[in-house]
């Protein structure tokens, strides 16, 4: 089983699904000849031709709107937003159209569409190449939202997303692209959308996270071992539909919950997770539910000092876990 980077798992999933099903096609800015600005679609243009690996004009609303039409017709488009920050011009098509096509037609139409978007900071991308945008969409019923942390899940979840009959937003953390590697089977498999995964068993504090901060949380957990703090770590993997059962179970394990994401705190998805716990696992709790998130500023600045101040780190996470453990 080869060791593969997070981004290579994206490419492999696309390639396998395009080989499996001729209805799958890829569209976006620079996805063709250039193979994507991050090289996520590299090789696909050569293998599948320009019609199935379509370089579109620089128009996100069109990328999504055209994909919706094609999906309603019966194809399975995989649209790329060059950066998650640039999904904003497509919000109307995503929220007014993709998320509601099935519902408004009483189930007569469907929209099997995947929108891939690289998100997240720590890449000197400044305000508009660093954002986490999931909170814009997590409250929109009709969409599914997948945010894998590791290559195995990337491949399995992207394949599941492509085969799903509803619109799926598939957010890929840019910092993970080349930094995170693991063994990925070359065989066909899927990872179910809507299922979280316990990444580490522990008894003192439960950390719930996803994306890059999941890795930082695991690092923090490891570093806290020697202090005798035993951390339980849950990777949400999918935000919508949310695996409540896994959250409640993870809460029950320790009675102390820390929810972590890079997106800013106020209005971020941690609020939803915390509320589910406060509503449904209240009597399991031994301490206030804590959220450790990006700060409430509009976005991550360019200057390395400011970027560093914005980003979460294993150290910041360890501190928060320690505090909660000592509570």
């Amino acid at each position, binding site marked *: 089983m080869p060791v593969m980077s997070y981004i290579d798992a994206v490419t492999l999933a696309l390639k396998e699904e395009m080989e499996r099903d001729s209805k799958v096609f890829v569209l976006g800015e620079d996805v063709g000849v250039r193979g994507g600005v991050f090289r996520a679609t590299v090789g696909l243009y050569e293998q599948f031709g320009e019609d199935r690996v379509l370089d579109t004009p620089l*128009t996100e*609303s069109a990328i*999504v709107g055209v994909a919706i*039409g*094609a999906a309603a017709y019966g194809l399975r488009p995989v649209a790329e937003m060059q950066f998650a920050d640039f999904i904003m011009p497509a919000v109307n098509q995503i929220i*007014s159209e993709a998320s509601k*096509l099935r519902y*408004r037609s009483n189930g007569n*139409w469907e929209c099997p569409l995947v929108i891939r978007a690289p998100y997240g900071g720590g890449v000197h991308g400044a305000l508009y190449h660093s954002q986490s945008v999931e909170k814009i969409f997590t409250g929109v019923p009709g969409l599914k939202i997948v945010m894998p942390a590791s290559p195995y899940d990337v491949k399995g979840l992207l394949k599941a997303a492509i085969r799903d009959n509803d619109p799926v937003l598939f957010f890929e953390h840019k910092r993970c692209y080349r930094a995170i590697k693991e063994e990925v089977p070359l065989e066909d498999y899927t990872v179910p959308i809507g299922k979280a995964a316990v990444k580490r068993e522990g008894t003192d504090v439960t950390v719930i996270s996803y994306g890059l901060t999941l890795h930082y949380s695991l690092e923090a957990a490891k570093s806290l071992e020697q202090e005798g703090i035993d951390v339980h770590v849950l990777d949400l993997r999918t935000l919508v539909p949310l695996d409540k059962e896994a959250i409640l179970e993870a809460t029950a394990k320790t009675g102390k919950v820390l929810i972590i994401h890079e997106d800013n705190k106020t209005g971020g998805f941690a609020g939803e997770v915390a509320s589910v716990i406060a509503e449904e696992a209240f009597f399991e709790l031994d301490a206030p539910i804590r959220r450790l998130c990006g700060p409430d500023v509009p976005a991550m600045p360019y200057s390395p000092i400011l970027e560093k101040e914005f980003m979460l780190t294993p150290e910041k996470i360890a501190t928060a876990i320690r505090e909660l453990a000592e509570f």
Partner: protein
Amino acid sequence: MSELKHTALGLTDDQVLEMYRYMLLARKIDERMWLLNRAGKIPFVISCQGQEGIQVGAAFALDREKDWLCPYYRDLGMVLAFGQTARDNMLSAFAKKEDPNSGGRQMPGHYGDHRYRILSGSSPVTTQVLHAVGIAYAGKLEKKDHVVLTTCGEGSSNQGDWHEACNFAGVHNLPVIFMVENNKYAISVPLTKQVAGGDIAARAKGYGFPGVKVDGNNPLEVYQAVKEAAERARSGQGPTLIEAVSYRLVPHSSDDDDRTYRSSEEVEEARKVDSLVVFKKYLMDHELLTEEKDQEIVAKIMQEINEATEYAEKASYPAPEDLYKHVYA
């Protein structure tokens, strides 16, 4: 009406009479809906009145067994010509479970019908124009030869999505017809305050494909333009933009009061060139129609509408628990 002859366009006498019947059917359904609304029986109407000639003329120029529609909320005449019935539309007006567009979920005028390749539409204007491009692209990928017709109002054609759609279709030379139904108003805002330059057809030049302006009160002129556009599309020559000019004869919707922004004289003037008036005269001039025959057609239509109304009024609403269905597959 211009000198255009239906025979010269390849339309038979039966076909033009059928066109007229669809136009009348649309008009009469619409009128009935206003009555029902004013009687407090249905909460909302949005009208085709004044645009039936465009809608039916366009539909007849397409292959109604194969081509696709991404219409907008006024296109009652078009969806009827593609296969929907008075009953379908009354079920929708009464928001009943059997409404084929949405099971009573959407307002009337929000068409969508898999049976007739009419893609489900929403309220935010102009989004459907991009979907049409997507269906056209899918046809290209799947090596089908369908044409997609999409419509919107002249106000809506200023939305960014319209530009992106025209450009995308132009770049990829797709079989789409962009038709703008220019009825001179977007709610209260007149053409001059809405469309810079006032000439929507002229915008096609900026996308490298043809743009034509036609008299939307003349269904034959619309037919001709859409026919040519469909032929271009089907033979791989790409998109066409058609601006069909007419007038909205009634308020924007049942919630509107058009006396606040236009004069009744202006509306009365427009009524004189209403496509129904003009086309009826054409048919009578060409001895395809008499007053008597007209009344027969109307009578049959009214019966259809009465039955449809009765059926829809009695039909059942969705059940409360239906609210939770069809969020996901």
